[in-house]
């Protein structure tokens, strides 16, 4: 999968509240499909559908333990998505550093 397509899949997967809740649950440790379905008023097949979307996006993976096959979080994918916030922060950091300088000028002008 191309990087762009992969990100499309990640963000499409994260645009759903149930799937974000599943991610949040897996952040505290791996869990079976049954355990993941527990907090939701949803059938196991419905949860499995969500899990498939997350899996295709590379956000989660399956363990090998026989029947249970616990799902776990692939943290690296999530980090890629969070990289943006850092870029956005840098852009505004630049704006606000200029604003700092401007405010200093205005304060000086006022006190003269």
């Amino acid at each position: 999968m191309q990087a762009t397509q992969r990100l499309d899949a990640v963000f499409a997967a994260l645009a759903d509240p149930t799937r974000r809740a599943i991610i949040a649950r897996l952040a505290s440790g791996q869990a079976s499909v049954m355990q993941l379905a527990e907090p939701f008023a949803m059938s196991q097949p419905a949860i499995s559908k969500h899990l498939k979307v997350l899996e295709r996006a590379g956000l989660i993976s399956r363990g090998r333990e026989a029947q249970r096959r616990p799902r776990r979080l692939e943290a690296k994918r999530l980090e890629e998505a969070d990289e943006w916030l850092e870029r956005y922060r840098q852009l505004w950091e630049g704006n606000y550093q200029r604003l700092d300088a401007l405010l200093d000028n205005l304060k000086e002008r006022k006190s003269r």
Partner: protein
Amino acid sequence: MKREQLRITKSGDRELVMTRDFAAPRQLVYDAHTKPDLVRQWLGGLPGWTMPVCDMDVRVGGKYRWVWRNETEGAEMGMGGVYREVKAPERLVTTERFDEAWYPGESLNTLVLVEQGGRTTLTQTMRYESAAAREAVIKSGMKEGVTVSYDRLEDLLTATTTTR
């Protein structure tokens, strides 16, 4: 000069929140957000870019329009919106829409200024129309992002960070 820390966090499933302190009374910070000749001096003033349009009719229902231009690249980026709430010197609520929008709808931006001991804490909340819109905004900032306007922004970003 000691730089204040800028924090950006996600709030709920459709908001982004920025917080930053300034060593100045809030009237000055408010002026810097509402007077065009001051806005021009700091907002988006990245190397190589000018701000030929900075029209602001700061009153409830009034419009604002900002355009940035890069002569060497022949690139232009514009955005604008409407003032929904104007309460000097503490609160400003505006709508925001980019000309080349890469996410659905507009965002509702709320600026809140709180002063304490001559210092001002700025909180800017951007509320998007849906969770999907916020994710689209976030996605567009990625290096692999495809929208032209954001690619430009990103170049600028790199330029600012390397010249500092």
